[in-house]
């Protein structure tokens, strides 16, 4: 028996040599997340994705919030107080109708994200309580004027893992910060989303039909579609980022928001965690939503209530969910959409592992 023990001891030590080299090498790279998160990411990337997801499912199910609780007396302050006067031509989204009554002051009311945004603020923010069964949960939503802004896909240091000729430094380049109005998290890592990516007009990961796609053209036009153009990059597409099936399509929630392999190798759809999503309204403007303790269905309901007619889920968990606005030109006074968002508002002004999106004023548009 002792010899069996010795064999297993030696085998374990032998296995730990290449594993340790890989782990130490990965941890030695530049990170802006803690050792714990980096270790979990390393485990995910090295065959442990199912194991991590199982542990996460188990943990989040055990720590699931209880229904009810004391009602909130106020909502977190987002944006700035003065919205200016909108000229008749400028479209502004209607207030998000509160679900819980009586409504709290400012609930569902859009406020500009930037100071001095004038009468046509490019980004509006609001918060509202999204679920009567959980009256303490607050959802944050941002509306992005597609006519005044340009969406850019920014690769992270490690995601996407494919070799890129123009990877950049995983942050918003200093030269682009003068016009920067917002940044927000990308989707799941490609490895876990089974989805495709087009970057700078070239396919970096084969596009998959039926998957929800943020589709941006060379002229700056952006859309959210269910991809049906095959594996290659269509002419005119500058970037296309896919992530799971659509959660809202043509105004309706996806009837199959329950679990299945099509939702990626991650925590169950019904598990309540930080979740984020991106939608588009019927005027072609983008809507970003994020909140803690959301299922995929409740996230879709938030986006639908805010006016999204098509939407996809973006990244999840507190470590990866960020929506950041900048009050002044030069990416000054960065602030998170919700105060309880875990990551620093400076997140995308320093190198980040994950890919993300930046929103900048178009040429000719001014603060």
């Amino acid at each position, binding site marked *: 028996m002792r010899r069996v023990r010795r064999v297993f001891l*030696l*085998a374990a030590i032998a296995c730990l040599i290449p594993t340790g080299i890989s782990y130490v090498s990965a941890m030695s790279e530049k990170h802006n997340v803690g050792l714990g998160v980096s270790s979990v990411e390393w485990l995910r990337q090295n*065959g442990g994705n199912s194991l991590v997801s199982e542990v996460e499912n188990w943990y989040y199910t055990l720590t699931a919030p209880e229904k009810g609780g004391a009602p909130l007396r106020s909502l977190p302050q987002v944006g700035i107080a003065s919205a200016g006067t909108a000229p008749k031509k400028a479209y502004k989204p209607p207030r998000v109708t509160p679900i819980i009554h009586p409504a709290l002051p400012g609930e569902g009311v859009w406020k500009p994200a930037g100071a001095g945004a004038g009468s046509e603020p490019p980004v509006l923010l609001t918060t509202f309580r999204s679920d009567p069964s959980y009256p303490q949960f607050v959802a944050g939503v941002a509306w992005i004027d597609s006519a005044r802004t340009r969406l850019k896909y920014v690769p992270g240091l490690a995601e996407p893992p494919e070799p890129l000729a123009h990877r950049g430094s995983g942050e918003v380049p200093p030269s682009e910060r003068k016009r920067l109005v917002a940044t927000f998290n990308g989707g799941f890592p490609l490895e876990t989303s089974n989805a495709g990516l087009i970057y700078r007009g070239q396919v970096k990961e084969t596009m998959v039909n039926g998957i929800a796609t943020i589709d941006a053209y060379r002229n700056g036009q952006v859309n959210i579609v269910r991809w049906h153009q095959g594996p290659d990059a269509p002419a005119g597409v500058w970037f296309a980022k896919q992530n799971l099936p659509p959660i809202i399509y043509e105004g309706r929630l996806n009837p199959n928001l329950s679990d299945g392999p099509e939702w990626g190798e991650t925590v169950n759809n019904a598990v309540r965690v930080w979740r984020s999503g991106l939608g588009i309204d019927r005027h072609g403007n983008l809507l970003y939503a994020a909140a803690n303790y959301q299922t995929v269905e409740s996230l879709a309901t938030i986006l639908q209530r805010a006016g999204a007619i098509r939407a996809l889920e973006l990244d999840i968990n507190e470590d990866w969910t960020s929506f950041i606005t900048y009050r002044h030109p030069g990416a000054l006074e960065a602030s998170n959409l919700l105060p309880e968002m875990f990551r620093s508002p400076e997140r995308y002004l320093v190198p980040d592992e994950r890919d993300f999106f930046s929103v900048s004023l178009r040429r000719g548009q001014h603060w």
Partner: protein
Amino acid sequence: MNRGRRISAEAAARRALLIDVLCALALAIAALTLCAGLGIVGVIAVLTLIAIGLWFAIEALINALKRR
């Protein structure tokens, strides 16, 4: 008649160690080849080390209690 060569206890121990090392290497190579990735191999290896550590600790405790 072919009689087996007698070897010392130390030599037998060294031979056993060599066989065990070869078995361990074969086991490690099989694990590294068959598992989904280094992460899973690492987790299993760490759990194995913890289990063997506990085994040693319990054995030592039992021996200590017996000596009393």
